[in-house]
């Protein structure tokens, strides 16, 4: 019964629309100071001719269209085509553009996971992320907890994500401190010989490209 909503006090607080749906929480909460600032900044920029409303709408669409599927397609190509993989490891930005992904001026470095090496990405200074390829970062990536612990105790962090690596595996943490952004080329899972690129891409999770996960097995 998709149109039924439990009659919790939460719904009373927010009210229901005439069709019986709760209003979206983000638009019917009391207007906050920071939302007022966003509206004011946006309106002033538009009025002064610095930016247009269409540019803002277009940028939101561009960002919404970016998702981990883009990165997964790049990874699947690298697993399938050794020449492409070599180009990816030499210049990940150029290789991504070659596949038609508009990643802007981003300086992208791909690092490869192998049987003996596992890479992990963090930005301790803020929350730099290969957003032009993968979309916006997950909330946990932006937490102070992840940003501080990933450099000090990466193995404990990985265990919490369900990634248990032997002591013999070398962990390489990459702190995005300046102008580079990183993406991980996960190790190709066993049992995937002969699989087509679109099927391979479905094995590549966002976390596998950040290093907090491994590629799925088929």
């Amino acid at each position, binding site marked *: 019964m998709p149109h039924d909503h439990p009659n919790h006090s939460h719904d009373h607080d927010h009210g229901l629309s005439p069709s019986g749906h709760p209003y979206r929480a983000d638009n019917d909460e009391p207007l906050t100071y920071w939302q007022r600032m966003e509206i004011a900044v946006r309106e002033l920029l538009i009025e002064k001719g610095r930016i247009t409303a269409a540019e803002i709408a277009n940028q939101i669409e561009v960002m919404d269209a970016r998702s981990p599927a883009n990165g997964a397609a790049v990874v699947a190509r690298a697993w399938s085509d050794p020449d492409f993989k070599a180009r990816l490891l030499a210049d990940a930005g150029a290789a991504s553009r070659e596949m038609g992904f508009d990643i802007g001026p981003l300086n992208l470095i791909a690092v490869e996971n192998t049987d003996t090496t596992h890479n992990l990405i963090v930005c301790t200074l803020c929350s730099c992320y290969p957003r032009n390829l993968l979309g916006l970062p997950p909330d946990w990536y932006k937490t102070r907890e992840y940003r501080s612990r990933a450099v*000090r105790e990466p193995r404990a962090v990985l265990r919490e994500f369900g990634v248990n690596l032997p002591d013999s595996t*070398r962990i390489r943490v990459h702190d995005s401190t300046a*102008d580079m952004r990183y993406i991980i080329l996960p190790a190709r899972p066993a049992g995937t010989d002969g699989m087509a690129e679109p099927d391979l891409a479905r094995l590549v999770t966002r976390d596998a490209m950040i290093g907090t996960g491994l590629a799925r097995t088929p």
Partner: protein
Amino acid sequence: MPPGHVRAPAYLRGKQGVIERPLGAFHNPEQLAYGLVADKKPLYRVRFTMAELWGDAAENPEDTLDAELYDHWLERL
């Protein structure tokens, strides 16, 4: 740490690492941060061992951390 915008994380200050690769020259963020005309500074990816960063508290001393550091934060040893 000195006050102001500094693009070298505190946990790396005074630690020894090796240059993993040069990355080219980029505008100095510590000038860009204040809207100043920024010189281009060489940027390097520097690799540190966890043993160097955390001593006995390191989970695995041979694991590594790579960070991008500008030339003016590095001292040749």
